[in-house]
């Protein structure tokens, strides 16, 4: 019972830290995907006096990734259905050029205003419409969710780190005598840390395994049958092979730091 308790005292906080890391990875992938969708769904409208290419817009502002000219005849068709062919052609000639502009990144509302200003500096551009209101509300909501989740993950990892530090104190107390005696007899750091490494690495691998199994279950078994659209569509983002490497590396790094802190913190004598 004591043996299990000793292991659980390190496995649980380690699992919480790894859970925080995995949540962050999943959340980062989800938000990147959502940002791309928002970015792709957003466009500005530019009205120009002469025909312009994407490169011309990019020269004015590097955030512009793509420009598409709106066919003027389509616009005229809707507003001049009773006009003669010649009148229609005259209207088309008189009309300026219309472009929808896509952005390369997901930017905030201030950046959109600054893009608009930089475009209007050109004499060839008469007007720019940014459709800021709907974009702004989506951006604010999205930023708020992103911020609160990051805060939650941060505190989750922080509390877990305190639990790990607590466990380090227990290790220090339990292994003090052995480490001191070994040091007196000339054991190098690696040998003095050996037993503790064995214990901590076993716990770290166990914690990693639990987290990997949990997220693999979410991706391969739960997501598909969850009935939640976003989960079904984005289930590939829930867990990826790279995550195992990241989790394992993080766990090993925590073990190395914890064990060396304990062993180096134990002084040979109390004087």
């Amino acid at each position, binding site marked *: 019972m004591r043996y299990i308790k000793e292991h659980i005292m390190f496995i649980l906080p380690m699992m919480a830290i790894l859970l925080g890391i995995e949540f962050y990875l999943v959340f980062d992938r989800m938000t990147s995907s959502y940002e791309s969708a928002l970015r792709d769904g957003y466009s500005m409208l530019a009205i120009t006096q002469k025909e312009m290419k994407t490169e011309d817009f990019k020269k004015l502002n590097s955030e512009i990734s793509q420009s598409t000219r709106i066919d003027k005849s389509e616009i005229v068709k809707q507003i001049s259905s009773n006009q003669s062919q010649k009148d229609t052609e005259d209207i088309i000639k008189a009309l300026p050029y219309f472009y929808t502009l896509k952005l390369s990144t997901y930017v905030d509302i201030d950046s959109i205003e600054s893009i608009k200003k930089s475009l209007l500096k050109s004499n060839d551009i008469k007007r720019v419409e940014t459709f800021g209101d709907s974009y702004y509300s989506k951006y604010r909501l999205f930023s708020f969710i992103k911020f609160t989740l990051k805060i939650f993950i941060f505190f989750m990892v922080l509390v877990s780190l305190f639990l790990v530090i607590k466990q380090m104190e227990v290790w220090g107390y339990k292994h003090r*005598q*052995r480490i*001191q*005696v*070994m040091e*007196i*007899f*000339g*054991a*190098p750091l690696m*040998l003095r840390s050996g037993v503790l490494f064995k214990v901590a690495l076993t716990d770290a691998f166990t914690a990693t395994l639990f987290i990997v199994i949990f997220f693999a279950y979410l991706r391969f078994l739960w997501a598909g049958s969850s009935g939640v659209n976003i989960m079904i569509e984005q289930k590939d983002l829930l867990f990826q092979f790279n995550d195992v490497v990241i989790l394992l590396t993080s766990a090993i790094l925590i073990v190395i730091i914890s064990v060396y802190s304990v062993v180096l913190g134990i002084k*040979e*004598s109390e*004087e």
Partner: protein
Amino acid sequence: MANVIHAENLSLSYDQGKKKIIQNAKFTVKRGEFVFITGRSGSGKSTLLKSFYGNLKPTEGSLMVGGLEMTTIPRRKLQELRTHIGIIFQDYKLINEWNVAKNVVLPLMIAGFSLDVQKTQAQRLLKHVKLSNYANRFPLELSGGEQQRVGVARALAKNPLMILADEPTGNLDDYSSSVIWDLLENACLQLETTVLVVTHKIPTVFSLPYRHFTIEDGGVYEIH
């Protein structure tokens, strides 16, 4: 005979020089000698012993142990030196979660000997200290005298250059004490190991010739 320890104007202190324990000590200990260090409680006997295995660095003067200057010895060299020193403590300092055999072969484990060698040596050493049947027991299952015999066996495990014993019989009855003195005498006689013992009282029955240092008011004096 070669010098194992050579001290020249040696001073030792705690609290970064504020609490002076030993001052201007000058002495030499040669290979194969048996040395008693006596003195009142708090006189600095254990402190002096600690300086021999690098637990305390000299604040002034020079201290050579096994040909190495202890004032400037690097960490790695100190670890290497310690593998040639057997240390015995009044409170035994055995590792309680290890069995007796594993405790005894700790110096061999540190030196990287194979498990087979460790096993053979554990049997030999435990036979030597008359604890052959105790290999799989744990220290807390043994009496004080038995634990100290394990401590002696551990100190002898690697045929050390010297043995440092800090009040090795301080917690033992007369019979157990005599067993420990016999073991230390044999180590000195048969293995030519230098033995330095810090003690309150030199045993009345002691067959080997020995040197006797005493510590008084921070000075180390030899009694002839």
